[in-house]
C-alpha cells in the first residue's frame, strides 16, 4: 500500500469539498489510479473531466506516471493564468 497526498484547486476544490487530502492505494499505482480512488472517496469529483490535468510533486505529468509512498498528486482545472 502507498499513501499519496492529493491537492485540489479552484473549481475542483469546490467539487471535492476540500483542498488537501490523502488516499491509500495498492502498489504499483499510477496517477490515473489515484484519480479513480479520488472519485470514489469524493463523489463530487465525478464531475471532473475523465482525464483531468495532473501534477506529480509539482511537475506536469501524464496520467500513466507511477506514484510512490509520500508523493503528492495535484488535480488541476484548465489553466486560466495571464
Amino acid at each position: 500500500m502507498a499513501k499519496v497526498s492529493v491537492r485540489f484547486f479552484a473549481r475542483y476544490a469546490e467539487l471535492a469539498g476540500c483542498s488537501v487530502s490523502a488516499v491509500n492505494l495498492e502498489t504499483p499505482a499510477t496517477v490515473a489510479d489515484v484519480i479513480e480512488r479520488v472519485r470514489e472517496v469524493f463523489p463530487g469529483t465525478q464531475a471532473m473531466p475523465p482525464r483531468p490535468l495532473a501534477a506529480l510533486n509539482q511537475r506536469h505529468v501524464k496520467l500513466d506516471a507511477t506514484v510512490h509512498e509520500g508523493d503528492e498528486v495535484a488535480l488541476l482545472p484548465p489553466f486560466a493564468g495571464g
Partner: protein
Amino acid sequence: MHLTRHPLAIADLLAEVQSPERGGTCVFLGTVRNDADITAIDYSAYEAMADEEIERILAEAHERWPDVRVILNHRLGVIPAGEASIAIVAAAPHRDAAFAACRHVIEEVKKRLPIWKKELRGDGSEQWVEAHDHR
C-alpha cells in the same frame, strides 16, 4: 518569488532588466477586462508549482535568447477591472529578440501555469473561467 498580491510595479521590473547595452525593451501587460459586467477577477494559484514553472519558463527563454533579460510577475487575489494581472518585461540588445522572448513567455504562461480565475460580476454572481484562448 514571481507571484504577488500587490499591484504590479512595472518601474521596478524595468529597472531589473534594463541596462545600457540593451537597446530594445518590450513590456507586456495583461489587464482585467470589464466584459459582461465583470468588476474584478479573483486569481488563485498552486503557488509553489506556479513559481517553479515560471522559473523553468524563464530559464528556457534565457537558453534560447542568451542576450535577453526577461522577468515576469503575476498578481493573485482580487484584481479590479483595468488593473494588470501579469507583467512580462524583456530587454535585449535589439528589438527582435525582446519581442520574441516576451511573446514566447506569455504563450508558455498560458499553457503551463497552474493559475485560475473566477470572474466577479456587478450583480454579485461569480464564475470560474475555463480556458479559452483569445490571442
